[in-house]
């Protein structure tokens, strides 16, 4: 049933805020109990069948507590938003009534109409003027009532969902969300913020779904939900480290006091690597958070985060950028070093703006994408396995970015650095399609193909390659990862890079320094990358007949 002006008059924002406070308290209690269960030290030391059964039961209880806590949180958020909106609506109504009174008009709350104050006589001109005011005020009143009904609907939906009802979103999704990024985007754009919050309460990874907008007008997109999830991951990561560290300290103390039993030694040996992994994860979450908090004047958006070492942060909002770039880092780059890769992206962001003075800041976005399992050492980097395993992730991420993009399609450039270029190659081969207009292989060991034309990219896409003369990567090209993309025979467009320094005075031995020099301030490689991202002619293309 639609609300009337009289219903709005009876609304009480403070009463709705009380609902918010109560739901928040209930949510905290439930989630807090869940966390306490997770951090009980007994589960680190208890072993055997009973332990497994108890752990299983514990996990089930935690799941219920989490679900209850998240539902209460969704109600609390909806109530807070509704209370704020009620304040705004009532203020708007009060202003409208004041304006009406000044014009000798009044609001009939029962029927929702603006009417003239009864008066014995009006002259014709005065009557006509009053009718104009009445029409204008009626339009404002209709908008206020419509907004009130929207707020009422959203709050009702939140409460219904928390009560286990069957709201529209649940009826629309009997099985699962659409995997196709375009269909997902179409669905997402029809949901209310309450429905989106409910979906998040059911799946905290939902912000990673390809096709979800980065930061839509209601701010319920990738950035919002992934930031919420990052905060939770960080919290759980800290609890894990504290719990494991506590137990390791206890065991170390026991050993120091003379306990040299095999059980103690085995447990200590088993816990040490787990503690290292937990610490690395925590470092990663902290690094991504620090990156999001950067105050260098360009807003960051969190496009991907999970508990497996994957993350993506965009400089600028990719949905509204006319020029989009994705940087895919390579070997040894984990979330704990995220800021270093982000700064490479920032330099490319500036370089694109520098190349084309007609571009405005919102026109460019550069995303650092660590969505695949990067090799952690050179032995892993010699194999294409990790690139192939991550091919679908990059392919899907790029498709999702296309699907959520507002307005006409952007010019998309994917930059693969070192083994990252192998990952880019994998995402454009083996049945995969990378929907990029440009690909740049930077310091590449190979892209898993023999020729640029073998890459399955957007129609008419250009393939670029650059390699510093002294880049140590030269030593492993043409081996296990495909032909050297910087070789003329590869068929790509070769871009100039500064040679970088050699490891020896005679210039025979290449260096790691040169491999990392592409983003140096005065390296022409950076200007070339900026131009490709900007969609303009790069300053220095190398002839394919000239060396190599």
């Amino acid at each position, binding site marked *: 049933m639609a609300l009337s002006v009289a219903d709005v008059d009876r609304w009480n924002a403070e009463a709705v805020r009380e609902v918010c406070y109560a739901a928040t308290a209930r949510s905290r209690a439930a989630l807090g109990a869940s966390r306490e269960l997770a951090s009980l030290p007994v589960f680190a030391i208890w072993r055997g069948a009973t332990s497994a059964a108890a752990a299983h039961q514990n996990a089930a209880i935690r799941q219920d507590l989490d679900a209850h806590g998240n539902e209460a949180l969704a109600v609390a958020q909806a109530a807070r938003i509704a209370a704020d909106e009620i304040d705004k609506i009532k203020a708007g109504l009060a202003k409208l009534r004041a304006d009406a009174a000044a014009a000798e008009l009044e609001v009939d709350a029962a029927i929702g109409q603006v009417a003239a104050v009864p008066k014995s006589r009006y002259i014709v001109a005065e009557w006509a003027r009053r009718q104009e005011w009445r029409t204008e005020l009626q339009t404002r009143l209709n908008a206020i009532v419509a907004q009130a009904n929207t707020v009422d609907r959203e709050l009702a939906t939140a409460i219904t969902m928390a009560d286990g009802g069957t709201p529209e979103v649940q009826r629309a999704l009997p099985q699962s969300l659409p995997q196709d990024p375009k269909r997902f985007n179409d669905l997402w754009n029809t949901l209310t913020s309450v429905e989106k919050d409910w979906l998040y309460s059911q799946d905290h990874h939902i912000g990673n779904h390809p096709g979800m907008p980065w930061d839509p007008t209601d701010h319920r997109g990738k950035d919002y939900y992934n930031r919420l999830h990052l905060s939770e991951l960080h919290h759980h990561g800290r609890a894990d480290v504290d719990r494991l560290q506590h137990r390791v300290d206890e065991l170390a103390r026991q050993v120091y006091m003379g306990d040299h039993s095999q059980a103690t030694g085995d447990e200590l040996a088993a816990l040490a690597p787990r503690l290292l992994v937990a610490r690395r994860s925590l470092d990663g979450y902290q690094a991504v958070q620090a990156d999001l908090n950067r*105050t*260098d*004047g*360009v807003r960051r958006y969190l496009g991907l985060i999970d508990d497996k070492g994957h993350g993506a942060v965009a400089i600028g909002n990719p949905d509204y950028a006319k020029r989009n770039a994705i940087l895919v*880092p*390579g*070997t*040894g*780059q984990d979330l704990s070093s995220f800021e*270093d890769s982000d*700064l490479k992206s*920032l*330099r490319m*962001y*500036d370089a694109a*703006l*520098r*190349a*084309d*003075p*007609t*571009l405005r*800041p919102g026109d460019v976005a550069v995303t650092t994408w660590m969505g695949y399992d990067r090799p952690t*050492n050179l032995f892993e980097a010699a194999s294409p396995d990790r690139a192939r395993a991550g091919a679908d992730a990059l392919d899907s991420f790029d498709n999702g970015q296309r699907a959520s993009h507002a307005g006409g399609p952007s010019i998309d450039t994917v930059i693969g650095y*070192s083994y990252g270029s192998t990952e880019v190659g994998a995402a454009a081969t083996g049945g995969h399609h990378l929907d990029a207009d440009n690909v740049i292989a930077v310091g590449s060991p190979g892209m898993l193909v023999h020729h640029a034309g073998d890459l399955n990219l957007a129609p008419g896409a250009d393939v670029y390659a*650059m*390699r510093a003369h002294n880049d*140590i990567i*030269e*030593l*492993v090209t043409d081996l296990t990862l495909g032909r050297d993309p*910087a070789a003329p025979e590869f068929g790509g467009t*070769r871009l*100039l*890079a*500064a*040679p970088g*320094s050699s490891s020896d005075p005679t*210039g*025979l*031995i*290449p260096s*790691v*320094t040169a*491999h*990392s020099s592409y983003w*140096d*301030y*005065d390296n*022409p490689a950076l*200007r*070339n990358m900026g131009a490709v991202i*900007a969609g*303009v002619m790069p*300053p*220095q293309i*190398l002839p394919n007949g*000239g*060396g*190599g």
Partner: protein
Amino acid sequence: MNRRGRRAGVRVVGALFMVMFVGACSHDSPPGPPTPTGATVLGGAPVESTPPPPPGFKLQPVIPKSQQQAQDTLIGYLRKTLQALPPGTTLDATRYGGGASIAPCKDIISGTPPVEFSTVGDLRLPAGTELGAIVAQVGDIWKSWGWHVYERVGFYKPNRFGYAPDGYSLSIEATSRPDYPPTLGGVSPCLAAEAPEGRSPFPMILGG
């Protein structure tokens, strides 16, 4: 045996070297100013010949003790440049986020790498200024300070890179659009990551 042939000969040795010394995509370059090493056609001979520095030029990097000092020094050089240009000329960094950035100037395997302070902006010139001449004019200004100045290969032309004896450098570069004014930027020498970070907001519009 040519250079490329010798390269092939050291591939095995180099691969061993790589396995022994590289744990990640790391980077270790000496501190100091960006060295104008020239540019090279991949696999071929260098195509950029660096002109000799002016008489008496001696590179003696002054490592900034703080980010504020790096910023102040760079702003000082930029202001001095603008003062020598037609009155009303400004440097507009509003398209580039915060106007200035701090970034690692070398990657290291462990610990925190040193950083460099850099900035870039769009040159705003009084109406009627001849765009084609302004780049050379700025290069001449830097030369008059005793800097090592030349046009570099691999950048939109015209351009000039100016290297100061204290390790700072500035560059003025055309863009892909000849009808637009050039960009002007600069970079400090590497400074320790532990150097004090606090600095005043970078002026988004810089005047002479």
